């Protein structure tokens, strides 16, 4: 919880379905020096086995709150400052049949402009293996919007532990030339420290 006078900024974890957003959020929680605290839940109600969260907060939004399913993780980023990272359902290229999911997507798009930070997650393994078809049109538009906004946008090349991911990282670098490209493996934790550094000192 935050004390009076705390400053909370919004960050957005966004990307196409299956890009690895949930795993990245989970890795951020696990690797951000979490100690003892409350057991947390994954999105869609799956209980995380051993996770504990003391100063950080991960909350699943329930249907009755009209916000299902999304997760938020609050991280202290120095002093009294906190960063609330929203993880929202993947932005599919076609409208989804479920209204609550569409509401979340709409909210994510609104936050896209208002958020202090955007973490755009792309499956680097898929990109590396099948090339340009591994990117969705949504990814291209997201990257264009993010790069146009300048500071505060980072392209996260996820699934770095997979065989084709390094090629994918190279291709993403070549195609987008993003100022901040953060390769990450949620599985091994490689690159998570880089994300945490970016969250604390965005550029």
């Amino acid at each position, binding site marked *: 919880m935050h004390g009076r006078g705390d400053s909370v900024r919004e960050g957005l974890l966004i990307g196409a379905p299956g890009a690895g957003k949930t795993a990245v959020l989970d890795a951020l929680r696990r690797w951000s020096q979490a100690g003892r605290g409350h057991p947390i839940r994954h999105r869609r109600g799956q209980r995380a086995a051993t996770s504990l969260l003391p100063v950080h907060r991960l909350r699943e939004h329930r249907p009755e709150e009209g916000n299902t399913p999304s997760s938020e993780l609050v991280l202290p980023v120095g002093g009294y400052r906190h960063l609330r990272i929203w993880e929202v359902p993947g932005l599919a290229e076609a409208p989804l049949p479920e209204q609550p999911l569409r509401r979340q997507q*709409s909210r994510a798009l609104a936050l896209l402009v208002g958020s202090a930070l955007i973490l755009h997650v792309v499956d680097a393994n898929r990109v590396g293996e099948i090339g340009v078809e591994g990117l969705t049109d949504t990814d291209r*538009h997201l990257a264009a919007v993010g790069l146009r906004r300048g500071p505060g946008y980072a392209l996260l090349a996820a699934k770095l532990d997979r065989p084709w991911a390094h090629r994918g990282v190279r291709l993403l670098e070549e195609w987008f030339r993003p100022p901040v490209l953060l390769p990450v493996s949620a599985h091994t934790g490689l690159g998570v420290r880089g994300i945490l550094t970016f969250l604390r000192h965005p550029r």
Partner: protein
Amino acid sequence: MSLAFPSDLLQQVESGTLSPGDALRVYRERLQSAEVHPGNREVRSTRTGATAVHSPSRGAAGLPAGTAEEAEERARQVAAIEAELQSLVGLNGVKRTVREIAAMARVQELRRQHGLHAESMTLHMVFTGHPGTGKTTVARILGRLLHALGLLARGHLVEVERADLVGEYIGHTAQRTRDAIQRALGGVLFIDEAYSLARGGEKDFGKEAIDCLVKGAEDHRQELMVILAGYPGEMEWFLMQNPGLRSRFPVRVHFPDFTAGELGRIAAQMLQQRQYRLSPEAVLYLRERLAHNTGRFRAEAGNARAVRNVVERALRCQALRLLGRPQPTREELMLVSRADLEEAFRLCAR
């Protein structure tokens, strides 16, 4: 430059009329446009992201005059429908023709507003192309677009074929055809396989349906769009059967067969719509099958429709495969494997 995300796009995403990807594309285009013409734009923005972008110097997008709110609402509708059209895979020539029609409608309205002579537009068209190339889909979008542009009162689509128009006794055909026209007034009358109307020979009632259609199309040319659709060769023959047809249906739009790459993108889009994705091996397999068996999907084989059948079959194969597992993960529930696809192709080939 940073614009709050337009509230009209957010509403459309929430209501399911626009995909997030298309909303992003439209937003991106508006950002670019705002940069190119900063003086023409007024951006209202609130903390929640509610935004309105409009040109203060004229009615929104040159649409028929009304209140500013009505014009703004129409401009939003036009942008959303155009985005929907652009999201269709391939069909670049078709999209270009539709853009030309929409641009013509806007410019004629602007000319009217400036006291210049404005051409009255004949909306009737001939769509040629093989099955599954998107003729009906585009007709439906076009109806809505012309409605948003103020050219059609309702913009709905009435789809008929020979059996709906041709009667069984003298006078029956004219009545049925007139009924179809009445139902379509204010929207689009889409006549699929229109050439079949002329196939029955001299004594067939199909000729009567054609005569009635030609008259109805002429009488209601400002209130109705009639689209005659069918295979390219047959439609050429059909247009020669009645001297009035060619001149009354001046716009021809050809829907080419999809390329292997386009069919692959259509398959990917269909899967993503249903929240599935192909494994990398499955992507390569699909690409290979489409490249080497293009004939199986193109021309009379059904194009996008044939791909849809394979995709739906693959989803059923995946379901069968997962049924044997005690607790499939979220990733597994989304993933369509190469084996699923192979099985689907095999079953669809039967």
